[in-house]
Protein backbone atom coordinates (compact mmCIF):
# COMPACT_ATOMS: atom_id res chain seq x y z
CA UNK A 1 0.00 0.00 0.00
CA UNK A 2 1.25 3.45 -0.89
CA UNK A 3 1.23 6.47 1.34
CA UNK A 4 -2.04 7.66 2.80
CA UNK A 5 -3.72 10.50 0.97
CA UNK A 6 -5.18 13.09 3.28
CA UNK A 7 -7.06 16.30 2.69
CA UNK A 8 -8.17 19.13 4.91
CA UNK A 9 -10.78 21.72 4.04
CA UNK A 10 -12.38 24.71 5.75
CA UNK A 11 -15.98 25.71 5.23
CA UNK A 12 -17.63 28.22 7.60
CA UNK A 13 -14.74 28.29 10.04
CA UNK A 14 -12.17 30.67 11.45
CA UNK A 15 -9.07 28.74 10.41
CA UNK A 16 -8.27 27.76 13.98
CA UNK A 17 -8.64 24.08 13.16
CA UNK A 18 -5.93 24.38 10.53
CA UNK A 19 -3.71 26.11 13.04
CA UNK A 20 -4.44 23.34 15.53
CA UNK A 21 -3.20 20.79 12.98
CA UNK A 22 0.01 22.79 12.68
CA UNK A 23 0.19 22.88 16.48
CA UNK A 24 1.33 19.29 16.45
CA UNK A 25 4.64 21.05 15.65
CA UNK A 26 7.54 18.90 14.43
CA UNK A 27 5.27 15.88 14.21
CA UNK A 28 3.86 17.41 11.04
CA UNK A 29 7.05 16.09 9.44
CA UNK A 30 6.07 12.58 10.57
CA UNK A 31 2.68 13.16 8.98
CA UNK A 32 4.43 14.02 5.74
CA UNK A 33 6.31 10.71 6.02
CA UNK A 34 3.19 8.59 6.27
CA UNK A 35 0.82 10.64 4.17
CA UNK A 36 0.58 12.78 1.08
CA UNK A 37 -1.46 15.91 1.46
CA UNK A 38 -3.61 16.09 -1.65
CA UNK A 39 -5.73 19.15 -0.78
CA UNK A 40 -5.31 21.72 1.97
CA UNK A 41 -6.21 25.25 0.90
CA UNK A 42 -4.55 26.93 3.87
CA UNK A 43 -1.16 25.29 3.29
CA UNK A 44 -0.93 23.83 -0.20
CA UNK A 45 -1.72 25.05 -3.70
CA UNK A 46 -4.20 22.44 -4.91
CA UNK A 47 -7.31 23.84 -6.57
CA UNK A 48 -10.88 22.70 -6.86
CA UNK A 49 -10.27 21.31 -10.35
CA UNK A 50 -7.44 19.14 -8.96
CA UNK A 51 -9.88 17.58 -6.51
CA UNK A 52 -12.47 17.16 -9.24
CA UNK A 53 -9.84 15.33 -11.28
CA UNK A 54 -9.28 12.71 -8.56
CA UNK A 55 -11.16 9.43 -8.98
CA UNK A 56 -14.01 8.90 -6.50
CA UNK A 57 -12.74 7.54 -3.19
CA UNK A 58 -9.17 8.61 -4.05
CA UNK A 59 -8.56 10.51 -0.81
CA UNK A 60 -8.17 8.22 2.20
CA UNK A 61 -9.18 10.73 4.87
CA UNK A 62 -10.60 14.24 4.68
CA UNK A 63 -10.63 16.41 7.78
CA UNK A 64 -13.50 18.80 7.13
CA UNK A 65 -13.68 21.84 9.38
CA UNK A 66 -16.34 24.46 9.50
CA UNK A 67 -20.09 24.56 9.38
CA UNK A 68 -22.26 24.72 6.27
CA UNK A 69 -23.22 28.37 5.92
CA UNK A 70 -23.57 28.78 2.15
CA UNK A 71 -23.86 26.87 -1.10
CA UNK A 72 -20.09 26.79 -1.62
CA UNK A 73 -19.60 25.05 1.73
CA UNK A 74 -22.17 22.44 0.75
CA UNK A 75 -20.63 22.02 -2.70
CA UNK A 76 -17.24 21.24 -1.16
CA UNK A 77 -18.81 18.93 1.40
CA UNK A 78 -20.37 16.91 -1.40
CA UNK A 79 -17.28 16.98 -3.57
CA UNK A 80 -15.00 15.84 -0.76
CA UNK A 81 -17.50 13.22 0.38
CA UNK A 82 -17.43 11.72 -3.09
CA UNK A 83 -13.65 11.79 -3.34
CA UNK A 84 -12.93 10.49 0.17
CA UNK A 85 -13.06 7.05 1.71
CA UNK A 86 -13.32 8.53 5.21
CA UNK A 87 -14.82 11.92 6.01
CA UNK A 88 -14.20 13.37 9.45
CA UNK A 89 -16.28 16.25 10.80
CA UNK A 90 -13.32 17.99 12.37
CA UNK A 91 -13.92 20.57 15.08
CA UNK A 92 -17.03 21.92 16.75
CA UNK A 93 -18.32 23.88 13.72
CA UNK A 94 -18.36 20.89 11.44
CA UNK A 95 -19.74 18.60 14.12
CA UNK A 96 -22.38 20.84 15.75
CA UNK A 97 -22.41 24.22 14.00
CA UNK A 98 -19.91 25.90 16.30
CA UNK A 99 -19.64 29.64 16.79
CA UNK A 100 -20.97 30.38 13.24
CA UNK A 101 -24.03 28.37 14.32
CA UNK A 102 -24.99 31.16 16.72
CA UNK A 103 -26.27 32.88 13.58
CA UNK A 104 -29.26 30.56 13.85
CA UNK A 105 -30.58 32.93 16.51
CA UNK A 106 -31.23 35.31 13.61
CA UNK A 107 -32.82 35.06 10.20
CA UNK A 108 -30.99 35.38 6.90
CA UNK A 109 -32.66 38.72 6.17
CA UNK A 110 -31.80 40.04 9.60
CA UNK A 111 -28.14 39.10 9.23
CA UNK A 112 -27.78 40.59 5.75
CA UNK A 113 -29.53 43.76 6.78
CA UNK A 114 -27.40 44.16 9.90
CA UNK A 115 -24.13 43.52 8.11
CA UNK A 116 -24.74 45.37 4.84
CA UNK A 117 -27.16 48.13 5.84
CA UNK A 118 -27.31 48.88 9.56
CA UNK A 119 -23.91 48.40 11.14
CA UNK A 120 -22.35 51.76 12.13
CA UNK A 121 -19.21 51.12 10.10
CA UNK A 122 -21.10 50.39 6.89
CA UNK A 123 -21.61 52.90 4.11
CA UNK A 124 -23.99 51.45 1.58
CA UNK A 125 -26.22 54.25 0.28
CA UNK A 126 -27.61 52.23 -2.58
CA UNK A 127 -28.46 49.41 -0.22
CA UNK A 128 -26.58 46.79 -2.21
CA UNK A 129 -26.92 43.26 -0.88
CA UNK A 130 -24.84 40.29 -2.01
CA UNK A 131 -26.21 38.70 -5.17
CA UNK A 132 -25.42 35.21 -6.38
CA UNK A 133 -24.87 36.55 -9.92
CA UNK A 134 -23.80 39.95 -11.15
CA UNK A 135 -22.88 41.27 -14.61
CA UNK A 136 -19.67 43.28 -14.87
CA UNK A 137 -17.94 44.42 -18.09
CA UNK A 138 -15.60 41.44 -17.87
CA UNK A 139 -18.42 38.94 -17.70
CA UNK A 140 -20.66 37.35 -15.09
CA UNK A 141 -19.48 36.95 -11.52
CA UNK A 142 -20.84 34.36 -9.16
CA UNK A 143 -21.06 34.29 -5.38
CA UNK A 144 -22.26 31.44 -3.17
CA UNK A 145 -25.81 31.61 -1.83
CA UNK A 146 -26.06 32.49 1.84
CA UNK A 147 -28.39 29.93 3.44
CA UNK A 148 -31.22 30.69 5.83
CA UNK A 149 -29.71 28.36 8.45
CA UNK A 150 -26.26 27.26 9.45
CA UNK A 151 -26.07 23.48 9.14
CA UNK A 152 -23.71 20.83 10.42
CA UNK A 153 -21.66 18.72 8.04
CA UNK A 154 -23.80 15.68 8.80
CA UNK A 155 -26.89 17.65 7.74
CA UNK A 156 -25.66 17.68 4.15
CA UNK A 157 -23.48 14.58 3.70
CA UNK A 158 -22.78 11.21 5.29
CA UNK A 159 -20.06 11.61 7.93
CA UNK A 160 -17.83 8.78 9.16
CA UNK A 161 -16.32 10.25 12.33
CA UNK A 162 -16.80 13.26 14.53
CA UNK A 163 -13.92 15.02 16.19
CA UNK A 164 -15.00 17.81 18.56
CA UNK A 165 -13.14 20.82 19.83
CA UNK A 166 -12.75 24.50 19.17
CA UNK A 167 -10.18 23.68 18.06
CA UNK A 168 -9.48 19.99 18.69
CA UNK A 169 -6.55 19.64 21.09
CA UNK A 170 -3.28 19.00 19.21
CA UNK A 171 -2.41 15.91 21.27
CA UNK A 172 -5.78 14.45 20.24
CA UNK A 173 -5.19 15.34 16.59
CA UNK A 174 -1.89 13.51 16.72
CA UNK A 175 -3.52 10.50 18.39
CA UNK A 176 -6.24 10.40 15.73
CA UNK A 177 -3.72 10.71 12.88
CA UNK A 178 -1.83 7.74 14.33
CA UNK A 179 -5.02 5.68 14.49
CA UNK A 180 -5.76 6.59 10.87
CA UNK A 181 -2.23 5.60 9.86
CA UNK A 182 -2.57 2.26 11.64
CA UNK A 183 -5.69 1.51 9.59
CA UNK A 184 -7.40 0.29 12.75
CA UNK A 185 -10.46 2.48 12.40
CA UNK A 186 -13.22 2.73 15.02
CA UNK A 187 -16.86 1.95 14.12
CA UNK A 188 -18.56 4.42 11.83
CA UNK A 189 -20.22 7.36 13.54
CA UNK A 190 -17.81 7.30 16.49
CA UNK A 191 -16.68 10.46 18.25
CA UNK A 192 -12.89 10.35 18.02
CA UNK A 193 -10.14 12.30 19.72
CA UNK A 194 -12.13 12.80 22.88
CA UNK A 195 -12.98 11.12 26.16
CA UNK A 196 -16.29 9.45 26.94
CA UNK A 197 -16.36 11.08 30.36
CA UNK A 198 -17.27 14.63 31.18
CA UNK A 199 -14.80 17.45 31.43
CA UNK A 200 -15.19 17.44 35.25
CA UNK A 201 -13.49 14.04 35.25
CA UNK A 202 -10.23 15.55 34.06
CA UNK A 203 -10.60 18.97 35.67
CA UNK A 204 -8.20 19.14 38.63
CA UNK A 205 -10.36 21.50 40.71
CA UNK A 206 -11.73 20.43 44.08
CA UNK A 207 -15.43 19.61 43.89
CA UNK A 208 -17.63 19.57 46.95
CA UNK A 209 -21.31 20.43 47.30
CA UNK A 210 -22.82 22.61 44.62
CA UNK A 211 -25.26 25.19 45.88
CA UNK A 212 -25.27 28.58 44.22
CA UNK A 213 -26.95 31.75 45.45
CA UNK A 214 -25.51 34.09 42.85
CA UNK A 215 -24.11 33.65 39.35
CA UNK A 216 -21.24 35.69 37.99
CA UNK A 217 -19.84 36.29 34.55
CA UNK A 218 -16.13 35.48 34.28
CA UNK A 219 -15.08 39.14 34.37
CA UNK A 220 -17.09 39.92 37.50
CA UNK A 221 -15.15 37.75 39.89
CA UNK A 222 -11.60 36.59 40.56
CA UNK A 223 -12.09 32.87 40.98
CA UNK A 224 -10.37 30.70 43.54
CA UNK A 225 -7.89 28.67 41.44
CA UNK A 226 -8.42 25.45 43.39
CA UNK A 227 -12.19 25.28 43.74
CA UNK A 228 -14.80 24.12 41.23
CA UNK A 229 -15.82 27.12 39.14
CA UNK A 230 -19.46 26.13 39.14
CA UNK A 231 -19.46 26.11 42.95
CA UNK A 232 -18.15 29.67 42.80
CA UNK A 233 -21.13 30.71 40.70
CA UNK A 234 -19.36 30.82 37.36
CA UNK A 235 -21.35 29.23 34.56
CA UNK A 236 -19.09 26.33 33.58
CA UNK A 237 -20.35 23.76 31.08
CA UNK A 238 -18.00 21.05 32.35
CA UNK A 239 -20.66 18.64 33.67
CA UNK A 240 -22.40 18.36 30.28
CA UNK A 241 -19.33 18.55 28.06
CA UNK A 242 -17.24 15.72 26.73
CA UNK A 243 -13.70 15.72 28.08
CA UNK A 244 -10.50 14.96 26.23
CA UNK A 245 -9.19 18.49 25.80
CA UNK A 246 -7.11 18.26 28.97
CA UNK A 247 -9.31 20.84 30.74
CA UNK A 248 -7.26 23.65 29.26
CA UNK A 249 -9.83 26.35 30.06
CA UNK A 250 -10.54 25.44 33.68
CA UNK A 251 -6.80 25.06 34.34
CA UNK A 252 -6.46 28.66 33.14
CA UNK A 253 -9.19 29.83 35.54
CA UNK A 254 -11.78 30.12 32.77
CA UNK A 255 -15.04 28.17 32.72
CA UNK A 256 -15.64 25.40 30.19
CA UNK A 257 -17.59 26.77 27.26
CA UNK A 258 -18.72 23.40 26.00
CA UNK A 259 -16.81 23.12 22.74
CA UNK A 260 -16.34 19.34 22.96
CA UNK A 261 -20.09 18.89 22.70
CA UNK A 262 -22.49 16.58 24.49
CA UNK A 263 -21.61 13.27 26.10
CA UNK A 264 -22.78 9.92 24.78
CA UNK A 265 -26.50 9.50 25.33
CA UNK A 266 -27.17 13.24 25.37
CA UNK A 267 -28.83 14.74 22.33
CA UNK A 268 -29.08 18.35 23.37
CA UNK A 269 -26.20 19.78 25.35
CA UNK A 270 -27.98 23.05 26.06
CA UNK A 271 -31.13 21.43 27.40
CA UNK A 272 -29.01 19.14 29.54
CA UNK A 273 -27.18 22.11 30.96
CA UNK A 274 -30.49 23.76 31.87
CA UNK A 275 -31.06 20.75 34.04
CA UNK A 276 -27.58 20.81 35.55
CA UNK A 277 -27.47 24.49 36.29
CA UNK A 278 -30.98 24.74 37.70
CA UNK A 279 -30.29 21.80 40.00
CA UNK A 280 -27.56 23.68 41.83
CA UNK A 281 -29.56 26.87 42.30
CA UNK A 282 -30.08 27.28 46.02
CA UNK A 283 -33.66 28.50 46.11
CA UNK A 284 -36.87 27.22 47.66
CA UNK A 285 -39.38 29.73 46.33
CA UNK A 286 -40.18 30.55 42.71
CA UNK A 287 -39.32 34.20 43.40
CA UNK A 288 -35.87 33.39 44.73
CA UNK A 289 -35.20 30.97 41.87
CA UNK A 290 -36.26 33.61 39.40
CA UNK A 291 -33.94 36.15 40.95
CA UNK A 292 -30.89 33.88 40.96
CA UNK A 293 -31.56 32.55 37.47
CA UNK A 294 -32.21 36.08 36.23
CA UNK A 295 -28.52 36.83 36.80
CA UNK A 296 -27.54 34.43 34.02
CA UNK A 297 -26.99 36.59 30.98
CA UNK A 298 -27.95 35.17 27.57
CA UNK A 299 -28.55 31.58 28.71
CA UNK A 300 -29.40 30.20 25.27
CA UNK A 301 -26.35 31.79 23.65
CA UNK A 302 -24.17 30.48 26.46
CA UNK A 303 -25.54 26.95 26.62
CA UNK A 304 -25.61 26.57 22.83
CA UNK A 305 -22.42 28.45 22.17
CA UNK A 306 -21.05 25.67 19.99
CA UNK A 307 -24.03 23.60 19.13
CA UNK A 308 -27.24 25.40 18.17
CA UNK A 309 -27.54 23.93 14.63
CA UNK A 310 -26.91 20.44 15.98
CA UNK A 311 -29.41 20.80 18.84
CA UNK A 312 -33.01 19.59 18.96
CA UNK A 313 -34.65 22.88 18.02
CA UNK A 314 -31.79 23.84 15.65
CA UNK A 315 -32.59 27.53 15.46
CA UNK A 316 -34.63 30.31 16.98
CA UNK A 317 -38.10 30.71 15.47
CA UNK A 318 -39.46 33.97 14.07
CA UNK A 319 -36.09 35.61 14.59
Amino acid at each position, binding site marked *: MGKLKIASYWAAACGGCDVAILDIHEKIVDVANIADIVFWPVATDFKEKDVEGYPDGYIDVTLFHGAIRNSENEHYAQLLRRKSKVLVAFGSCSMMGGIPGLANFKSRDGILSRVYLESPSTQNREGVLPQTRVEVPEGELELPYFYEDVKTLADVVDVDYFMPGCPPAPHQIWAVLQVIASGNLPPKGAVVGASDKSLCDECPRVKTEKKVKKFYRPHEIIPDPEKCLLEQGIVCMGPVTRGGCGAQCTRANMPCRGCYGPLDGVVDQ*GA*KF*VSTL*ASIVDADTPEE*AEEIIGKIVDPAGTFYRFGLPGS*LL*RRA*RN*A
Partner: protein
Amino acid sequence: MATADFEPRIIGFLCNWCSYAGADLAGVARLQYPPNVRIIRVMCSGRVDPQFVFKALAEGADGVLVAGCHPGDCHYADGNYKTMRRFHLMKKVLAQLGVEEERVRLEWISAAEANLFARIMQEFTEELRRLGPFKPGRKLAAGGEG
Protein backbone atom coordinates in the same frame (compact mmCIF):
# COMPACT_ATOMS: atom_id res chain seq x y z
CA MET B 1 -51.82 31.52 12.07
CA ALA B 2 -54.59 29.71 13.88
CA THR B 3 -57.03 27.80 11.78
CA ALA B 4 -60.50 26.65 12.73
CA ASP B 5 -59.76 22.97 12.22
CA PHE B 6 -56.34 23.01 13.90
CA GLU B 7 -56.14 20.45 16.69
CA PRO B 8 -53.11 21.14 18.87
CA ARG B 9 -51.03 18.21 19.97
CA ILE B 10 -50.04 18.37 23.60
CA ILE B 11 -47.55 16.17 25.39
CA GLY B 12 -48.25 15.96 29.11
CA PHE B 13 -45.59 14.73 31.48
CA LEU B 14 -47.50 13.83 34.64
CA CYS B 15 -45.98 12.62 37.86
CA ASN B 16 -47.02 9.20 39.05
CA TRP B 17 -48.04 10.20 42.57
CA CYS B 18 -50.21 13.27 42.10
CA SER B 19 -50.89 14.58 38.61
CA TYR B 20 -51.30 11.25 36.86
CA ALA B 21 -53.69 10.17 39.58
CA GLY B 22 -55.49 13.49 39.14
CA ALA B 23 -55.86 12.86 35.43
CA ASP B 24 -57.00 9.33 36.17
CA LEU B 25 -59.62 10.64 38.53
CA ALA B 26 -60.82 13.03 35.84
CA GLY B 27 -61.40 9.98 33.65
CA VAL B 28 -63.10 7.96 36.38
CA ALA B 29 -65.30 10.94 37.18
CA ARG B 30 -66.14 11.23 33.46
CA LEU B 31 -65.16 14.87 33.32
CA GLN B 32 -65.20 16.33 29.84
CA TYR B 33 -61.98 17.80 28.52
CA PRO B 34 -60.42 18.05 25.05
CA PRO B 35 -58.66 14.87 23.90
CA ASN B 36 -55.58 16.74 22.65
CA VAL B 37 -53.19 15.63 25.33
CA ARG B 38 -50.96 12.57 25.08
CA ILE B 39 -49.98 11.71 28.60
CA ILE B 40 -46.61 10.31 29.54
CA ARG B 41 -46.35 9.12 33.11
CA VAL B 42 -43.09 9.82 34.88
CA MET B 43 -42.22 8.91 38.45
CA CYS B 44 -41.68 12.54 39.40
CA SER B 45 -41.92 15.88 37.63
CA GLY B 46 -38.25 16.17 38.63
CA ARG B 47 -37.57 13.37 36.18
CA VAL B 48 -38.56 15.57 33.26
CA ASP B 49 -35.29 16.37 31.59
CA PRO B 50 -35.54 19.60 29.59
CA GLN B 51 -34.46 17.47 26.64
CA PHE B 52 -37.86 15.75 26.80
CA VAL B 53 -39.61 19.07 26.36
CA PHE B 54 -37.31 20.17 23.54
CA LYS B 55 -37.66 16.85 21.81
CA ALA B 56 -41.44 16.94 22.04
CA LEU B 57 -41.48 20.39 20.43
CA ALA B 58 -38.92 19.38 17.81
CA GLU B 59 -40.95 16.36 16.82
CA GLY B 60 -44.39 17.79 16.39
CA ALA B 61 -45.91 18.77 19.73
CA ASP B 62 -47.58 22.18 19.79
CA GLY B 63 -47.45 22.44 23.54
CA VAL B 64 -45.96 20.65 26.53
CA LEU B 65 -47.41 20.33 30.02
CA VAL B 66 -45.29 19.33 32.97
CA ALA B 67 -47.34 18.57 36.04
CA GLY B 68 -46.33 17.47 39.51
CA CYS B 69 -47.37 17.45 43.15
CA HIS B 70 -47.93 20.74 44.95
CA PRO B 71 -44.81 22.16 46.62
CA GLY B 72 -44.35 20.33 49.90
CA ASP B 73 -46.29 17.28 48.71
CA CYS B 74 -43.61 15.63 46.57
CA HIS B 75 -43.38 11.89 47.13
CA TYR B 76 -39.60 12.30 46.96
CA ALA B 77 -39.57 15.34 49.26
CA ASP B 78 -38.13 17.92 46.88
CA GLY B 79 -38.33 16.67 43.30
CA ASN B 80 -40.88 19.28 42.36
CA TYR B 81 -38.68 22.08 43.74
CA LYS B 82 -36.04 20.97 41.28
CA THR B 83 -38.67 21.04 38.55
CA MET B 84 -39.65 24.56 39.51
CA ARG B 85 -36.06 25.87 39.36
CA ARG B 86 -35.36 24.07 36.13
CA PHE B 87 -38.55 25.36 34.61
CA HIS B 88 -37.58 28.99 35.15
CA LEU B 89 -34.30 28.53 33.34
CA MET B 90 -35.84 26.42 30.60
CA LYS B 91 -38.44 29.11 29.91
CA LYS B 92 -35.70 31.71 29.52
CA VAL B 93 -33.87 29.51 27.03
CA LEU B 94 -37.07 28.71 25.14
CA ALA B 95 -37.97 32.39 24.97
CA GLN B 96 -34.61 33.14 23.35
CA LEU B 97 -35.29 30.36 20.87
CA GLY B 98 -38.52 32.08 19.92
CA VAL B 99 -40.87 29.58 21.56
CA GLU B 100 -43.97 31.39 22.80
CA GLU B 101 -44.28 31.40 26.56
CA GLU B 102 -47.74 29.83 26.45
CA ARG B 103 -46.55 26.64 24.77
CA VAL B 104 -44.85 25.20 27.80
CA ARG B 105 -46.67 25.01 31.11
CA LEU B 106 -45.84 23.88 34.60
CA GLU B 107 -48.79 23.05 36.86
CA TRP B 108 -49.20 21.56 40.30
CA ILE B 109 -52.09 19.10 40.23
CA SER B 110 -52.85 16.84 43.19
CA ALA B 111 -54.42 13.39 43.01
CA ALA B 112 -57.75 14.89 44.09
CA GLU B 113 -57.78 17.78 41.62
CA ALA B 114 -59.50 16.13 38.67
CA ASN B 115 -61.46 19.30 38.02
CA LEU B 116 -58.29 21.36 37.92
CA PHE B 117 -56.70 18.95 35.46
CA ALA B 118 -59.74 19.11 33.17
CA ARG B 119 -59.84 22.89 33.37
CA ILE B 120 -56.12 23.23 32.60
CA MET B 121 -56.47 20.96 29.57
CA GLN B 122 -59.41 23.02 28.37
CA GLU B 123 -57.51 26.30 28.76
CA PHE B 124 -54.27 24.98 27.33
CA THR B 125 -55.93 23.51 24.25
CA GLU B 126 -57.78 26.75 23.54
CA GLU B 127 -54.65 28.79 24.04
CA LEU B 128 -52.66 26.62 21.63
CA ARG B 129 -55.46 26.68 19.10
CA ARG B 130 -55.18 30.47 19.16
CA LEU B 131 -51.39 30.33 18.79
CA GLY B 132 -51.48 27.88 15.90
CA PRO B 133 -49.13 25.03 15.12
CA PHE B 134 -45.62 25.14 16.54
CA LYS B 135 -44.18 24.32 13.15
CA PRO B 136 -46.23 26.20 10.60
CA GLY B 137 -46.43 24.42 7.28
CA ARG B 138 -45.61 21.12 8.89
CA LYS B 139 -47.83 18.39 7.53
CA LEU B 140 -49.95 16.78 10.19
CA ALA B 141 -50.56 13.08 9.95
CA ALA B 142 -54.04 12.13 8.85
CA GLY B 143 -56.41 11.99 11.78
CA GLY B 144 -54.04 14.00 13.91
CA GLU B 145 -52.45 10.90 15.41
CA GLY B 146 -48.87 10.04 14.72
